[in-house]
């Protein structure tokens, strides 16, 4: 089997790509992967320079949510 895969650079590439595609398609089927943007929380994009103190208070409260999938987001 190994001899067949390593016969030439082309067979190796094809096998690697088959495994790559296989894993992604399998994962997609299992998790129901959609083209939904994976969102990471970043409070600094809401930052406004005039509201500095208020911002720091808000940010300290917000420690728990860092990673989320937003339902309204699309690609």
């Amino acid at each position: 089997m190994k001899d067949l895969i390593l016969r030439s650079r082309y067979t190796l590439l094809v096998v690697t790509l088959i495994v790559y595609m296989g894993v992604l398609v399998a994962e997609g089927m299992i998790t129901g992967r959609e083209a939904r943007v994976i969102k990471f929380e970043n409070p600094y994009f809401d930052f406004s320079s005039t509201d500095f103190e208020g911002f720091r208070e808000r940010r300290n409260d917000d420690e728990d949510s860092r990673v989320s999938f937003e339902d309204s987001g699309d690609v």
Partner: protein
Amino acid sequence: MDKFAILQFYGLIKREVLEHRNLFIGAPAVVALLLLVATTWAVTQVDESQLAEGLRYVSVLFDGLSPFDMAPFFMLLAVPFYLTLYVCSVIYLINTLYQDRKEMSVLFWQSMPVSNLQTVLSKIVTIVLVAPIFYVLIIFAMYLIAMVWLTILGISNDVDLVGIGYMFLAAIASLVLIYISAFVTSLWLLPSVGWLLLFSAFAKKTPLLWAGGVFILVGFLEDFIFGTQFLANWVASRTSDPNQYLIFEFQSIFERIFNYDTLFGIVVGGILIVGAVFMRRFTD
């Protein structure tokens, strides 16, 4: 790991850095220089008293605050460096297993007792762990120069130097954040790293065209064979938000590394990297 293996790996990394000085040292140095020149020009357009006012405001802002909390403010300044690192990384990865086959030096490298796995790993470590160090050092030098200038401005305009000192500390703290952010982004982008290395090792010419062309082709193939678009969805969901490529706070590091999508991406990247390691044996 025995001492010789460590020395060997260090020798491999040293070779990578020496061979690609332009990408790891030259490029960020040019960016730093451009930023300093642009800032110097912008500053000459503004009246000194206005500058001093701005400096006074910033000095009060940073005074007494933890550098680690204030570090994120400097992340935006790092964006041009991140873009440069990203472009240089693509150039490095797509060429690194191709160039030595084109100019025959691969015969020399392969005549040394270094396995294909060590070779490919050394290149990954170089781009993920070592290249950002040089970028951070150059950003540090840039901040140092800026700090000297700001201190002079502060002294001649009676601005509280302690606040400027806190700002500098925050800038230094941001260097750590920049480095970690680069590392975490590399993990996020490990599939791309593996993809570029695979085609760098595979192509007999124009490796970038191969990498791009097959990428598009594979997307179409999936639809054609399975009627699904999971691959395209996966790529789309991983590339459309700039937040995925920057970390702004120390607190988010753990979640950014240990979440399902990053870890799954590492598995996919691993598959492609294994392909690249085996592909390295085809030197003709």
